[in-house]
């Protein structure tokens, strides 16, 4: 409170000077000179009171300004402003709030300042750097007879080590230091938010690249299914995440349908990257090999060293179906499930060799079988049999064989029925692995 006002209202000795002056003014026994003197006294008092009132109003406005600045300081939004602009805003608000002439933010090799005088700012930066280099650091150091304050930040980063505040020839008070403390806390908070924000941005960028890479990898599978007279073909492939290690390749060479289904061990983008390379190798092998065994050997020759380096293997089955008589020659490199239904009986087509990338495959055996009307060849990936239900029970090979045994003769219908059975078993449980299903059935007479 203003000293002028308090002495006017309640002066020393009980009755204030105003009351005693009024008493002298209205005293019937008093002289004219007494009254004039009393009136002058009252005039002075009223003037003092007016001054005091202005002083209080000024102080209130200043407090209000500081409150507004404090609120503005805590509301600086790093996300919408960007880092550098947020720092400048913070300095401007800090300058208003602490009633400083110059405020600086000092980093390792950088500084920002708010204030009218660049030279004063440079001097303050030097002072802050001296303080940062001092052997013993205090969080808030007052120097220069109280006219400068250096505040070392609690959450420093290379661009934000300390704040400096300077007044032009007048000292900071204890109350001002509390404001400096408030500015420090707000700056620390802003830095934490900035860091969190930048991390989130980085994560989002990585996620976006991951998504782009996944769709690129998955795009190698996008090719229309070939149409071959006498064969009905069903194919469905669903990666568990954006991309996966399952793949399928088809080719028609001299009226025969070549097919390959493979599974790169592992999941997600890493598996998909290997997968896209396996697809290229398989595509070339299907078009250049005389026999499925030779095709598997060619894929192995192309990929063996690479797969050894990355530490994964690829299960692969390659087959060729001649629609003229329904014969299938297939070479199975550790792939499952490969199931054949002949005359209503279902049996697995055993592996001819270990998966590609485990051993060098040179001259694998080949399995030969014949598909008559009503028969079917089913090639899936392990995601099909390993689909779990809510209780963690696998769909399993037994159920798969049952669906195949009792299923329709059309590849399309059979394929949909198998997928429906797997989905029914899952009952909403997310697939844990990529899931591929290829079904081949002979479709009646062949005109050739």
């Amino acid at each position, binding site marked *: 409170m203003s000293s002028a006002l308090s002495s006017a209202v309640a002066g020393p000795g009980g009755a204030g000077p105003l009351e005693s002056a009024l008493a002298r003014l209205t005293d019937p026994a008093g002289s004219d000179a007494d009254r004039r003197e009393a009136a002058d006294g009252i005039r002075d008092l009223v003037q003092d009171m007016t001054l005091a009132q202005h002083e209080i109003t000024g102080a209130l406005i200043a407090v209000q300004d500081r409150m507004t600045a404090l609120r503005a300081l805590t509301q600086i939004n790093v996300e919408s402003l960007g880092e550098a602009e947020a720092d400048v805003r913070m300095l401007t608000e800090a300058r208003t709030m602490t009633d400083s002439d110059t405020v600086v933010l000092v980093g390792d090799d950088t500084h920002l300042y708010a204030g009218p005088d660049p030279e004063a700012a440079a001097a303050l930066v030097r002072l802050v750097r001296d303080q940062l280099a001092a052997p013993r650091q205090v969080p808030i150091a007052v120097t220069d007879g109280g006219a400068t304050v250096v505040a070392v930040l609690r959450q420093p980063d290379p661009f934000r080590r300390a704040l400096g505040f300077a007044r032009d020839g007048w000292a900071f008070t204890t109350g001002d230091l509390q404001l400096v403390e408030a500015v420090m806390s707000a700056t620390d908070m802003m830095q934490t938010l900035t860091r969190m924000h930048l991390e989130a941005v980085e994560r989002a960028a990585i996620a976006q690249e991951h998504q782009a890479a996944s769709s690129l990898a998955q795009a190698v599978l996008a090719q229309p299914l070939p149409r071959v007279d006498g064969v009905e073909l069903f194919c469905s492939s669903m990666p568990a995440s954006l991309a996966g290690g399952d793949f399928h390749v088809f080719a028609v060479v001299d009226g025969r349908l070549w097919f390959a289904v493979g*599974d790169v*061990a592992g999941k997600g983008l890493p598996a998909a990257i290997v997968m896209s390379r396996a697809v290229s190798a398989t595509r070339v092998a299907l078009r250049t090999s005389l026999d499925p065994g030779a095709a598997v050997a060619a894929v192995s020759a192309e990929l063996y060293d690479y797969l050894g380096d990355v530490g994964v*293997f690829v299960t692969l089955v390659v087959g060729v179906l001649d629609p003229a008589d329904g014969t299938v020659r297939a070479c199975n490199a*550790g792939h*499952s499930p490969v199931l054949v239904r002949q005359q209503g009986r279902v049996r697995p087509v055993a*592996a001819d060799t*270990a998966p590609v*990338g*485990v*051993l060098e495959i040179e001259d694998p055996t080949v399995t030969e079988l014949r598909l008559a009307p009503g028969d079917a060849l089913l090639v899936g990936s392990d995601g099909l049999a390993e689909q779990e239900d809510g209780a963690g029970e696998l769909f399993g090979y037994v159920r798969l064989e049952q669906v195949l045994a009792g299923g329709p003769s059309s590849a399309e219908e059979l394929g949909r029925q198998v997928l429906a059975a797997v989905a029914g078993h899952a009952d909403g449980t997310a697939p844990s692995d990529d899931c591929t299903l290829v079904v081949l059935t002979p479709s009646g007479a062949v005109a050739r």
Partner: protein
Amino acid sequence: MRIRIDTSGSRASVAVAGRFDAHEVAEFRTVVEPLVAAADELRLDLSNVVFIDSTALAELVRLDKATRAAGGTLVLTDLSDPVRVIMEITALLPVFTVEEPAGAGADGAP
């Protein structure tokens, strides 16, 4: 998955129990990798593995190659049925050195 390790001299025994799949492979590698260089014979007990997936199988193949490259041997000392079945399906069984426990008569095993 639980992993137990016993080392005595140049022989290290590792027992894996529970699920051995894509989620567990990183931990398995962290634990077992140091043994590849340290042990001449790495013995892996898989008798209590209830489920194994292709990622874990690939890890076993990788481990087999790594021990060979380091001049050692990987021996699978006992296979649970789920492991044996998937190794038969994928034709991986002949790839590994498998040592049947004395007197054990797993189906089809001599």
